[in-house]
């Protein structure tokens, strides 16, 4: 039986450096190619040597698909394509293709220019890598080659995020990337049709969380920011330049307007303007409400939010600052954090998930003393708040997606093992399907049962269907006759006559004959007539003929009568029928063996 194999090189029972290998119908596909924020060494990238121990990446992979622009999904792409070496096609949506190189360049700058690392990909490599990218449109069926096709679905999460359906023949896999099942202030909800994949590979970041309603979380967030501002504190919100940032900006912008607040809101990095511009140009990827009203009022033109300058951090008085990156692992957000950490009036709000090893992760776990570079320690006195704004599906959302797609098997990635275990139990219980959660480097194998396409002669199909009434009836399967011809890698189902003709064969007939002895004191001709009358009475609805050459035909079955040589009252009936009429023939022989009923004329 055919198999589909799935091997996570990253994101197996873990969050970060998503990279999943899928082998399906003889094709190998890499899903995402991300980096891990929690590591600064080799572990930061997926272990491609797993693949290339015996082959070049280009020879092994048929295509690479990137689900969205977050670095834990695309951060290793230039490394893979330019340094390890891959020249095949890379697919991503238009917004991802537009934004991804900017984030990669940012990432490169922080690593090389600030941390002074060498042996890292260069700006040119990012450009060369992006040249290999083929843009994907939503719902477009892209034929990677004659057999492999992929189709992207809307995933919410961030601008341009997509889920992909990968299909070879009748086998298929869906990979969700990161997705969000509830629309938020700027994006819509993920959607997929009932595509019944063999495996649904889903993220499971919030596998155990059922989040309260978005409204409550928003109110909470605004209340905390407001309180802090009121008492003169500074609020730091570490974000990634694109994504949550825009949602929170829309939220604060409308709040500031409604409450008539005066405290300044800043957005760090030069990316802001640019980022908002991407949202304006790719407005078809945002939610319905924004799309509908964009001509009158573009939600991404902010009045209250201004660009941040490094010197503003020391300004007196309250302020709100959005700074990148989101997990406090480097860059401007970390610098501001260091400045403000010592004052208990200040506050840091973490609006998203933080991977292990980052400062964000540490302070969220309650650590109040941080070891910094150069053995210095930092006392964390400011308030630390966590608000789950990152747009991942929660347990309810994941179950909802399973209901939408109706997969035959489920596979969880991009989550923590303990939480996955819990969700796995729930999925197996509720949907009675197998659920897998392979660790990095571990291969899950799923056997599939694809049906085999066959071209059936239309005349044969019509003939067979006519026997069952005018309309096909799903409840009534029937046996049918036909000949299967396997020729030049294709299968044809035709009537036996046509098959013989096509193959130039002579037809051989297989006939059964049988003798039945019968006590009947009449002339041969009368006996034959009595048999004819008897069969006429018993077999309603069959064509029964008494032919002039002293035979009776029931459909194609021939019956003849002769007298026994010894006893003229003992008649010998000769029955003969073809293989195709075996059922009727054997029925007739057993019927006649019982003799003829009295009272026949």
């Amino acid at each position, binding site marked *: *039986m055919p198999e589909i194999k799935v091997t996570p090189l990253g994101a197996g029972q873990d969050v970060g450096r998503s990279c999943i290998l899928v082998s399906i119908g003889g094709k190998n596909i890499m899903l995402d190619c991300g980096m891990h924020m929690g590591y600064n060494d080799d572990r930061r990238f997926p272990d491609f040597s797993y693949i290339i121990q015996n082959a070049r990446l280009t020879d092994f992979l048929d295509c690479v698909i990137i689900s969205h622009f977050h670095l834990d999904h695309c951060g290793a792409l230039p490394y893979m394509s330019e340094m390890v070496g891959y020249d095949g096609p890379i697919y991503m949506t*238009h917004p991802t*293709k*537009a934004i991804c190189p900017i984030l990669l360049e940012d990432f490169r700058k922080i690593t090389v220019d600030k941390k002074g690392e060498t042996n890292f990909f260069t700006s040119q490599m990012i450009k060369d890598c992006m040249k290999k990218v083929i*843009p994907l*449109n*939503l*719902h*477009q*069926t*892209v034929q990677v080659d004659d057999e492999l096709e992929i*189709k992207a679905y809307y995933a919410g999460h961030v601008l341009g995020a997509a889920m992909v359906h990968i299909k070879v023949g*009748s086998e298929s896999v869906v990979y969700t990337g990161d997705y969000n099942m509830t629309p938020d202030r700027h994006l819509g909800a993920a959607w997929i049709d009932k595509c019944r994949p063999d495996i649904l590979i889903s993220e499971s970041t919030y596998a155990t969380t059922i989040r309260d309603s978005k409204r409550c979380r928003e109110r909470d967030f605004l209340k905390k920011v407001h309180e802090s501002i009121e008492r003169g504190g500074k609020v730091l919100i570490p974000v990634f330049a694109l994504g949550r940032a825009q949602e929170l900006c829309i939220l604060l912008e409308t709040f500031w307007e409604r409450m008539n607040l005066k405290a300044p809101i800043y957005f760090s990095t030069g990316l802001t303007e*640019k980022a908002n*511009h*991407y949202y*304006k*140009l*790719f*407005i*078809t990827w945002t939610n319905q409400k924004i799309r509908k009203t*964009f*001509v009158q009022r573009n939600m991404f033109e902010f009045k209250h939010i201004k660009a941040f300058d490094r010197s503003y951090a020391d300004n007196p008085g309250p302020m709100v600052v959005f700074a990148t990156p989101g997990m406090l692992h480097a860059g401007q957000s970390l610098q501001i954090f260091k400045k403000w950490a010592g004052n208990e009036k200040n506050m840091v709000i973490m609006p998203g998930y933080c991977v292990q090893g980052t400062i964000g992760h540490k302070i969220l776990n309650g650590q109040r003393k941080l070891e910094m570079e150069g053995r210095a320690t930092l006392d964390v006195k400011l308030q630390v708040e966590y608000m789950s704004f990152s747009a991942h599906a929660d347990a309810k959302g994941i179950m909802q997606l399973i209901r939408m797609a109706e997969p035959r098997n489920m596979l969880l990635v991009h989550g923590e093992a303990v939480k996955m275990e819990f969700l796995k139990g729930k999925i197996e219980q509720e949907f009675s399907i197998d659920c897998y959660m392979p660790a990095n480097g571990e291969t899950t194998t799923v056997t599939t*049962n*694809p*049906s*085999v*396409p*066959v*071209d*059936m*002669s*239309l*005349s044969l*199909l019509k003939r*067979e269907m006519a026997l069952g009434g005018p309309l*096909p*009836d*799903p409840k*009534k*399967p*029937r*046996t*049918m*006759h036909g000949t*299967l011809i396997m020729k030049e890698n294709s*299968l*044809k*189902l035709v009537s036996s006559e046509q098959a013989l003709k096509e193959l130039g064969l002579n037809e051989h007939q297989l006939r059964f004959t049988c003798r039945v002895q019968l006590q009947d004191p009449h002339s041969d001709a009368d006996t034959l007539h009595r048999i004819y009358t008897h069969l006429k009475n018993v077999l309603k609805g069959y064509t029964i003929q008494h032919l002039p050459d002293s035979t009776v035909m029931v459909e194609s079955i021939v019956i003849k009568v002769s007298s026994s040589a010894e006893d003229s009252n003992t008649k010998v009936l000769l029955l003969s029928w073809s293989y195709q009429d075996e059922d009727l023939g054997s029925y007739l022989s057993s019927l006649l063996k019982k003799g003829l009923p009295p009272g026949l004329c």
Partner: protein
Amino acid sequence: MKLTYCLSGHPTLPCNVLKFKSTTIMLDCGLDTTSVLNFLPLPLVHSPRLSKLPGWVSKDGTINLEKELKECAGRVFVDSQPEFCLPEVELLDLSTIDVILISNYHCMMALPYITEHTGFTGTVYATEPTLQIGRLLMEELVNFMERVPKAQSATCWKNKEIQRLLPGSLKDAVDVWTWKRCYSLQEVNSALSKVQLVGYSQKVELFGAVQVSPLSSGYSLGSSNWIIQSHHEKVSYVSGSSLLTTHPQPMDQSSLKNSDVLILTGLTQIPTANPDGMLGEFCSNLAMTIRAGGNVLVPCYSSGVIYDLLECLYQFIESANLGTTPFYFISPVANSSLEFSQIFAEWLCHNKQTKVYLPEPPFPHAELIQTNKLKHYPSIHGDFSSEFRQPCVVFTGHPSLRFGDVVHFMELWGKSSLNTIIFTEPDFSYLDALAPYQPLSMKCVYCPIDTRLNFHQVSKLLKEVQPLHVVCPEQYTQPPVSQSHRSDLMLELQPPPMPYRRCSVLNLPFRRRYERVYILPEVLLSSCGCPGRLPVLSYKQSQYFFGDGC
């Protein structure tokens, strides 16, 4: 049976119905608006000239229709709310239509008539730009009509006995009884709520029997050709396609290969004009008029070629020293059209996509607006009347010159020979369009820009994609009446194309021989080993399956 019912006689505004494998598919839903040329213009403000036109009375005085018909410069016009010529609705029961496939926003204008008044219960498929811009054009049309309500609805002239005696084009107008007034906004919304969005190369399954898929056609934003196929048969529907590099994504030609039948509609309406040359002429005439102190009027649709005109002017303005000339775009949907054009990156040509990645707006009219060179207004009323400076260039609709703000500018500028009207849309004969404004002093320049395939391009295309049979409007099988010697202005194919006209029913010449069925692998394995076991035929999810009999 594979049949097509041809419901429209207009080759560029087609409406055909295809019956294929027990599905009924309508291909496009074009509205023939040339009928409005028989009507008087609808002025935005009272026009003494129009109201003083004499009524028409037959020569012998027996027929007096002076209330309904008015005479202007030797021609007779109907004084009533303009009416459109609908696709034929009697040829087959339109409530049996399963789906409607739309190829571009110009070919969907009859949609509300079909979806709202025939018992239609199916789905309409269109791309997102087609839906959004189609909506704008419909809203604009409704707005043009409802802004100047006309109490009178003329019907007497439609009487067969009377129509026979009418002069000029009125006598020859066909099916006048089926002509309808414009739909309402409510009908537009209801019709468009039936649209399901599709992307290029998306495969849409219809009842498990037929697969349809839109392909980029290169003509306008989101414009598509359609493939309608089963596992063994393929029909290609080619409508409004272009091989020129303008703003839309290039045409996908290779996917049209191996068609059994190719239905060909929407070729260029001006086969003798070269769009590039016309664009040059447009610019030079525009500059000449402005330099002489006159105004330029460009009657146009609110989306489509206008984007290319603005892009061309963007490059031309500085070199022609027109930096201070105001350009106005006046339409109830002007703002929306300009904004929408900037957000469909996926549907644009490669150059424009690259700009979006920067990120910059793909069309330069964003810069024209930012620098105040181009201003847009919903109508001549309001802000425009106070900000309006002359000499200027005005883009406005409707290109038929029968309704919309353009009527006002005709009345305003028609009397001066300094002004110029430049026709760029190919849908209406410019002489007919101008007829109710005669006598005119303003200059008229005819620069029709039709980027659709010409006969040379189409014969090359057909050679490449090699369809077994071609079906096309009868107009394409002979040279145009006015140029009967030009045998290069027609399709010459072997086998000859099957022509259709309004109300034709064609039997498409191909037969199905095979049907795709699916065998469960265990049956295949078992029947190889033991021939005695018979498979079982069953029907699930609209497909035939063979299962194990046991």
